[in-house]
């Protein structure tokens, strides 16, 4: 079968292969702007899905809705469902803090705590109840984030002394320390140079063996390089969702075509 002929049905994932799914998800901000309009989408397990779209299309808002981060923005109203392990994470009985450990997030700008490299990882784990030595956790998290070799001899140094790319990998290590299943990434390389970007991209390829990754990116080539599935959003709507190879060779929707070929707006 040719790449161009792959249909979404060939990539139908049975329910136990879905890590996270949204149904009729709507997010409205305090000023009445509806940023996400009835989004329904399923993310396959242990795969990377990229969400692309022009600024203001609702992709970052949708991403934050996947681990209840929008609740931290006053006046935001979320409707619909986000299902994780067959439970709606918006169910009143669900604790949002637990949700955010299982569905972690990495942000656009590296935001390490102004503490040592060691404490950046140990601190979050301690808050979540880890007692005793954190040495093992710090080492394994840094190894998973491909940072251990670079920092093992200076764990007590300030995290802020690291380069941008290293800081971002530290933030990923901090997320991994909480043993998440899904990692949400909101333009994680937009503040990084090409080499640091390459290291983060390589890392996501490694991490998807054990985790489900959903990444919002403005960099279309990045979506092409690292993702298995790509979702294109426009003005709060999901326009097209397809295997990345299909979407970048022969998109179904004219609006997708115009956006990815740089002819939109």
């Amino acid at each position, binding site marked *: 079968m*040719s790449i161009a002929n792959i249909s979404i049905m060939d990539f139908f994932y049975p329910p136990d292969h879905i890590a996270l799914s949204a149904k009729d998800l709507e997010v409205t901000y305090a000023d009445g702007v509806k940023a996400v309009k009835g989004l329904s989408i399923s993310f396959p397990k242990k795969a990377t899905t990229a969400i692309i779209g022009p600024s203001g299309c609702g992709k970052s808002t949708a991403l934050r809705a996947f681990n209840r981060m929008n609740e931290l923005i006053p006046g935001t109203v979320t409707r619909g469902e986000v299902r994780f392990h067959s439970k709606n994470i918006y169910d009143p009985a669900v604790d949002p803090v637990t949700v955010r450990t299982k569905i972690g997030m990495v942000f656009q700008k590296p935001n390490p705590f102004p503490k040592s490299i060691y404490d950046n990882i140990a601190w979050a784990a301690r808050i979540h109840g880890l007692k005793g030595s954190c040495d093992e956790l710090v080492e394994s998290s840094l190894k998973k984030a491909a940072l251990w070799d670079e920092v093992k001899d200076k764990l007590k140094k300030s995290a802020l002394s690291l380069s941008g790319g290293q800081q971002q990998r530290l933030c990923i290590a901090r997320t991994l320390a909480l043993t998440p299943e899904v990692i949400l990434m909101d333009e994680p390389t937009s503040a990084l140079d090409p080499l640091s970007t390459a290291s983060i991209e390589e890392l996501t390829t490694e991490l998807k063996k054990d985790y489900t990754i959903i990444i919002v990116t403005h960099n*279309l080539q990045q979506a092409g390089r690292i993702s298995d599935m790509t979702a294109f959003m426009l003005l709060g709507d999901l326009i097209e969702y397809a295997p990345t190879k299909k979407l*970048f060779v022969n*998109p179904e929707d004219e609006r997708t075509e115009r956006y990815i070929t740089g002819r939109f707006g």
Partner: protein
Amino acid sequence: MQNPAFDADVAAIDELMVLMAAKVEEAVLKASHALKTQDVDLYKTVKNADGEIDKLQLQIEDHVIELIATKQPVASDLRKLLSVFKLAADFERAGDYAVHLAKATKLFVHEPQWHQLERIATMADLGAQMIHGTAQAYKQRSSALARQTALLDDEIDHAHKALVQDTLAFLMQYPEQAERATRIITLSGHLERLGDHMTNACEAIVFMVEGIHADLNE
């Protein structure tokens, strides 16, 4: 909606491609005319044109490589560039066949009994029609015209088979004419291949426009 920088580059490639196709079509028609009229001098013209055709192919390829390297095209832009690459190669081969045809004229001068040359010339005219149709289909981004053009390949194939059979029968009767007879068969084979190359080019145009791999050689 436009992507002006990219579209201007593609327009420049379009111009080169149309020019290249026109030169190839002209070369095939001239070769056909040379065979029909025993005009040996036309060979030089066709040979010189082939040098220009080869240069145009390289120019087109360079454009495509630069665009892929600098603009990272996707979707229809990517399909367009990849199809252009294939088309240029197919046109270049067609130009080579025109040279072979024109070159053969020398062998048949003062040999008016070789009526097979008329049939070769007719096949060459069909080939020129395919080249013309392919170039138009590309220019107009018309997969329908590409599909229609590829149908001409059947006519060339039939003509080729019939000519080979007749020439073999002739060869058994006049074995001393083996050199010229085998040359007729070779030329017929070249034109059959020319038809195949234009069919491939038409398939590339369908991929460019529709994003599907069509088999137009059925």
